[in-house]
């Protein structure tokens, strides 16, 4: 059974992967997209975001390339790999199963 920490880290991973499933983005854009799509509910801790991105890159779930951002600075844009896409689907199924389980416990008998 995954520990709560793992679950939380897995959640961040899932959020990142899911966000990148639509389009390649750089770090700040990922955090903003998550915030926006959650209606400002989910504030990604940026201190965990970048280590997570590098870890996922190392796992081979993300690849990155350098482009020039709208402000003219260098931007590292992350993109989902096919492997990452599969991982995303797996994580998503896991999440739904988790949520379903929790809901079931919480629902009135």
């Amino acid at each position, binding site marked *: 059974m995954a520990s709560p920490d793992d679950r939380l880290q897995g959640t961040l991973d899932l959020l990142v992967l899911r966000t990148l499933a639509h389009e390649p983005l750089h*770090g700040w854009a990922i*955090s903003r997209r998550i915030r926006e799509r959650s209606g400002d509910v989910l504030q990604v801790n*940026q201190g965990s975001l970048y*280590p997570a991105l590098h870890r996922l890159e190392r796992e081979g779930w993300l690849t990155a390339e350098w482009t020039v*951002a709208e402000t003219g600075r260098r931007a590292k844009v992350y993109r989902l790999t096919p492997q990452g896409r599969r991982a995303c689907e797996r994580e998503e199924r896991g999440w739904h199963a988790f949520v379903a389980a929790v809901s079931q416990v919480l629902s009135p008998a």
Partner: protein
Amino acid sequence: MRPSADPLGLLPRLRRIRAILFRSRAERDLDDEIELHLSLEATELVRQGLDPQAAAVVARRRFGRIDMVKDAVRTIRGGEAVDELRRDLVFAARALRRRPGFAAVVVLTLVIGLASATTIFGVVYGVLWAPLPYGEPDRIVTVSQTERSRGREQGPASLPNFLDWRARSRSFSALAAIEPFGMRLTTPEGPERIPAWRVTEGFFDVLRARPLLGRTFSADEYQRGRARVVVLDYQTWSTRFNADSSLVGKVLIMNDEPRQVIGVMPPGVEFPPRPGVWVPKIPEPAELLERNAAFYTVVGRLAPGVTIDGARADMSRLAAVLGQEYPTVDRDLGVALTPLRTYLVGSVRARLLVLFGSVGLLLLLTGANLTTLLFARAVEREGELAIRAALGAGRWRIARQIVAEHLLLAGVAFALSLVAASVALRDIRGVAAGLLPRAGEMHIGLPAVLFAAVIALAMALAPLRPPHRRRRVQRTLVVAEVALAVILVVGAGLFVRSVRALLRVDPGFTPENVLAITLQTESLYPADSLRAQFARTVEARFAALPGVRFAAVTTALPFGGDIGPVQSSFEIRDRPLGSARARPTVRTAAISPGYFAALHIGLRTGRAFLPTDDATHPQVAIVSAAFARQYWPGANPVGQQITVSFDSGPVLREIVGVVADVHDAGLDRPPTPVLYLPYAQAPTGGVAFVLETGSSPRALLGRARRELATINGSMPVASVTTLDELLAQSTGPARTILAVLGAFAVVAVVLAGLGIFGVMSHVARARTKEVSIRLALGASSRRILGLVLGEAVGLAGVGTLIGVLAALGLGRSIGALLYGVSPLDPVALTAGVALLLAVASVAAYVPARRAAAVDAVRALRQ
């Protein structure tokens, strides 16, 4: 948080230091990534109404601790690099395991080259370059006395001259003199002789060497009447006293007197070379007046700010002053200063550098071979790499894979080479101990490891890129290999011929089966008559031993092995030679009548010594042919009278005979003039008994010792040798270098053969199609054989030509090291050329046969 493998948290700190020192690209990328985030966040905040400054602050705060984020990322990335390296190496190992033959050949080739190079590096570094174990060793010089008129370049100094130098020169912060002197050590097993040196005050200040144990002499220990003390060198302490650390403070009986051990010097403190023990020099009053008794090696430390040339000028000035003050003795004297390192190793420097140069050639050869092998490998896996590239492996990734493979091979070879080299060096240390200075310093230390590592790395990384015009490069490699091998073989041939020429030189005496037993009789028999009597007794008893054909006494053995005084000054009666008081000197041996017979030294004219030539009869002398030629050219010296000062005042002697020359100073030097005196008329303290036997002289030693003990039980045997050994020792350095160079030449030929075989196999295989077509069109397989073989021999021919030209060029630079053979020696050149052409033909024959045996039909169908 992930669990940390670094509980002290040192790793991030180290990484940070590294990042500051070498900000890597990855670090810059990470900075940029975070910068971008902060600036976008701040821009967003400004849009929401904050002023830019506050926005920047808030953006930073929201981000959290930047350094912690960076550390977390670095940890992930670091793991990544290590992981990838491990993956690459594992992959490389797996790939190589599939090709064990290839891996073995590459490793073997590398080990041959690398192990020889590292061994020779160990030798050369240890002898020539390893730091001397003294403080500021470059400031130490030896100071020797020269005699301008006789062209004597270096020699020991006399005590009064040394004292004047020390008192009146301004160039040295310390100056000391050392005097050789034997010590009889009383041990439970009987008396033993050990080398010893008397050193004047300041000797250890000159060296600035700290003792390993205990201390060196204090100022008052150089005063008369103080406790007797001794300092041991490391060798003596470790071999004779089993490195007993409680020895310091103990008392030894030396020359029948108690002496307290006060210190032991560390290994490598060897001045003079192989010192034994040091004791304080306490001059006798009479010695302070003996300005012509030059026995002292003088060593000094240049004063701060004084250059060696400055010191030379100062000392020549002083020498001129002393020449005026003591015209009878010092008139002709000069002073020579030699840096300590040159003094110690100058004699072998040129030879060792030649050796080191040949290592360079060998390494080039190894590199060429390796390139050949790795080419073949690269070609073979072009297919594999193409597949991997098609599957998405990046160029970098593929390159890294090849690097990993090469590194793995080089790493294995590196480790094996270090083992091989340290084994080889241990053997060389044993052999070279008496033949090369500083032989004890030859070992695998950090410099040798670094040397090997750099070469291994260079070998691993150099042949990375298979070139485009492969075939051309391969042919160039064959040519280069043959050329390099020719240079080495011709060089070795020249040395072989030199040593053979040297060994063919007739030494002038018969060294076979002659045992030499050296004794110091002075302290036990202080009176001349007693010494002469003792020597006569011993000689008679030795002569009576079964198996001994001749026994005789001498005070000087050929080829060094000096025992007592070996020079005398002389004057020919009624004939002034040079200036009034600058009398010529000559190598002198006091011998018993049987000496010439024992060594088979022929009498040219006159008579040999007789038993009656003793103290009670007229004083006589015999001269060598070279002596006669120099002073009585074309005339017979027998009957001439000369005044000889040997170990005592001048004595008028009549020359009664002339004997054949002996190559006393070494086979490569012309015979020097020698003066022989009857031992009974000049019984000095140090004597050697030479015993000529029918066979195996060493077997006689036990009986000779027992015989000696019955005459005087406390007489120590100083040394035992055979004349064969002395002869071998005199040619030792030349033969040692020859042996190593010879081994190199063999290795070079093998490497070149392997290389040619490798390339020709490859070329032949690449030509399979062409060969098949030719066969199909009716060419005979003999013709194909000739085709492939012809190509190889052609390439070898070009290589040989280049090699010969290079050898001719390089030969000039080693000319000075050759003896009796020209650097352009046709025999060595022809032999080298013939050998390499033969090896090339043999190496190419197998591939050529294989090419000729191709099944044309099958090959064409494929």
